[in-house]
């Protein structure tokens, strides 16, 4: 919501999230396989992963701040908020759940974030177009964005059954 009002920020966010997700699934795999599993501490995965994600996000924030101060400013609070993006933790946990190996984990994390990025960027392009639309005032801003998201999910229903597990 916060970053999807302009394509520019959405693309920045997409990069950041992709980076975080891929790195997080990599690290969480390592942590799980080489630290937690040997010690029989699997019940700590969630906690450890949150730690991992927080660290990766912090790291990303620093990198972004260094490399692109402009993007850093545009993303603002939303950059650290990647931490709370459930998808990141979800991917990390699913990796364990589905018992992916090292490369599968990375690919899975990358794929999930690529999908997230695609939708985010598409959504932002739509919102940019909507910014100029003559929307009734009660629906301006977030309201119409939510409706749009709803309609988008309708469209994505078309992929039902496309993926065979």
């Amino acid at each position, binding site marked *: 919501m916060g970053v999807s009002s302009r394509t520019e920020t959405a693309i920045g966010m997409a990069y950041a999230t992709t980076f975080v997700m891929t790195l997080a699934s990599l690290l969480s795999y390592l942590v799980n396989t080489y630290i937690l599993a040997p010690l029989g501490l699997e019940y700590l995965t969630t906690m450890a992963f949150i730690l991992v994600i927080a660290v990766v996000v912090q790291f990303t924030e620093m990198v972004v701040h260094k490399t692109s101060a402009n993007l850093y400013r545009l993303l603002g609070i939303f950059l650290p908020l990647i931490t709370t993006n459930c998808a990141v933790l979800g991917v990390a946990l699913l990796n364990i759940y589905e018992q992916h190996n090292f490369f599968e984990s990375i690919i899975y994390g990358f794929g999930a974030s690529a999908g997230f990025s695609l939708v985010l960027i598409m959504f932002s392009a739509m919102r940019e*177009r909507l*910014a*100029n639309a*003559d929307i009734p005032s009660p629906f301006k801003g977030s309201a119409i964005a939510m409706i749009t998201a709803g309609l988008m999910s309708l469209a994505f229903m078309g992929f039902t059954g496309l993926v065979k597990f």
Partner: protein
Amino acid sequence: MESIINRIDKNQFWKFHGGIHPPEQKFITENKPIRTLPLPKELILPLQQHIGQAGDLLVSVGDTVLKGQPLTSSAHPMAVPIHAPTSGKITAIKDSTIAHPSALKEPCLFIEPDGNDTWVKRNICNDYTKQSDSDLLQKISDAGISGMGGAGFPTYVKANTSAKIEFLIINAAECEPYITADDLLMKEHSPTIVDGINILHQIIKPENVLIGIEDNKPAAIKALQNATKNLDHIRVCIIPTKYPSGGEKQLIQILTGKEIPSGAIPSSQGIVMQNTATCFAIADAVINDIPLIRRVTTVTGLGLNKPQNVWALLGTPVNFLLEQCELHPHDKQRIIMGGPMMGFTLPSGNVPVVKITNCVLAPSAKEISDESTEVECIRCGQCADVCPAQLLPQELQWSAKAKDHQQLETLNLFDCIECGACAYVCPSHIPLVHYYRIGKAEIREHKQQEIKADKAKIRFEARKLRLERDKKAREEKQRKAAEARKAKMNSGTVEANNEMSAVAAALARVKAKKAQTSDTTSQDSTTEAAAKPKNPQIAAAIARAKAKKLANQVTDNSDITAEVDKTVEAKVENETPTENTADDKKSKVAAAIAKAKAKKLAKEQADEKTDVQNEITEETAVNDVSEADSKKAKIAATIAKAKAKKLAKEQVDEKTDDQNEIKEETTVNDVSEADSKKAKIAATIAKAKAKKLAKEQVDEKTDDQNEIIEETSVNDVSEADSKKAKIAATIAKAKAKKLAKEQEAEKSDNSQPDVEDTKAAEKKKRIAEAVAKAKAKKQQRLELN
């Protein structure tokens, strides 16, 4: 490059993107010869008729001028003069509506023709080929020739290019519907036009001369071909009719396939373009020494009975033209200067014909209907298909409506040539061009403002620097002067001695004064600001200072000192809550202190303080209290003697707070009652304070507390159910006891002066906590209620 010429010879041209075919409507005037009009009664000559600068006036009101006499001159390179179109008298020089879409008023010369049409002395030149380039240029410039196609760019500037020119393109396309001025000019005066082209050729020395003409003017093409039969370097290029092929960039693309980069001028690509009418004017000026005082103007439209091309003197009011062509106006009649695609409507007929006026259009209601209503854009993209600049008009439109300037610039708004093709095809009838114009004007304005802001910033910074420098310089000067004086004094002369003694006396005086005041302003210098009694804080500061003085006067009495210290503290506390609430009180305190009666003061303080504390309990946040702490600490540091007593007093504070808390616990009724009770408590405390001496505090206070508790619980019994009240009372009692214990403990701590500060801070923290607790509880209760 030969290939371009080869292609042209084969009549193969390039195409520009888009373009439209609006109804041409040239038949209205194209078969009628150019008519010469009688002299109008009055001529209105705007001083500026071209892009650039207006010249300086050479004449004044009342002067008699001859035909062809220059009226303005300027040394500015972008300025060309204007000339008197006929002989006559200048009747006025005033602001008048000019030929511009804005219909703004600009300075104009009014000439009343005398009917004689007397020429100034002319210098007819029969063989221009013998003249030097600079002479020719000077002539073109002096004749006041500027582009007659639309923009009005001074011609000699264009011709005086230093770049190597490959193509000189003569724009005879005349793609706008209705207009036939150039067409007729070519039909009737092709040889003169070709002379003009040759003059330009001589100056510019291009490799090729191309005349671009649309294929809907066969007669003009024929006339041109005849006139250029023997001239190999001139090629007449017949291009397909399509709007806007007469646009500079478009014509260049059609003929040469080249694109002029955005923001660049054609000469950077080795191309110069001139209009046919301009060529005619050049020939007229160079050969016949006739400055630009007349032009062919198409007066057309079905709203006229006699539409025709006319030789119009510059300055002829449009009204006169319309009269001559017999306008029969209808409701909502528009008079358009220029063509139907790019022209602009005139607000009145008083607007004069100027150098760029190639058409005056008076359409009937049927031809051009009135404003059709705009509906929403459906993104059909037809506008993008016809845009000759390959812009995205629909997206520009969204951004223009949303005033998203950044996006507009990203979409290259400034490459729009305002040809109107997009608005012409728009099925939703959106006046697209109008939106772009507004957008452009806004962006331009904005840039202007930005430039101005930058300038202002620089000036501001410069000024600041200067002021600083001045100040330093002044100080330096003073210092030097002082040194000089010192040196003089030391030199031992009588005068010097006198001076020295004078200075010494003055110094002594100052010192004495300082000594006097130093007692009163020992800790801070806020008394300096005493001149501003309005400021409550400063008033408080003064009051503080006064109180201090007072304290010094009665130093012996430690009790009173304590009281005074409390005053100071009360004031400090007064400062801490939100200012607007405290202002009144502060001034009150100030007034009270000014009276300097110790007892009264003490009482007042007590009231004040309790009030303030109550207030803190009610509204200030914890950090306010901590702020108070820091100030308190400061004062404490300076008044080290009174520390022990102050701490003791702070216990009272704490107690008061706790009492409030207790009371709040026990009270189940509403706030107003609580307030009255508070007041009672305050009174009690005040009494207690008045009585108490530093060492017997604890016992007494506990007693007092108990009393208060009894009181409050009794009050409660009468209002709330007795059980609750009893329980509350018990709790209160317990708390009071605990409190007393605490206070005792704290007192023992107080005996150690080293840890005083930390202890005090701790205690204050506890007060803050208590306050917060009380607040929370109160809120809870309110919610419950």
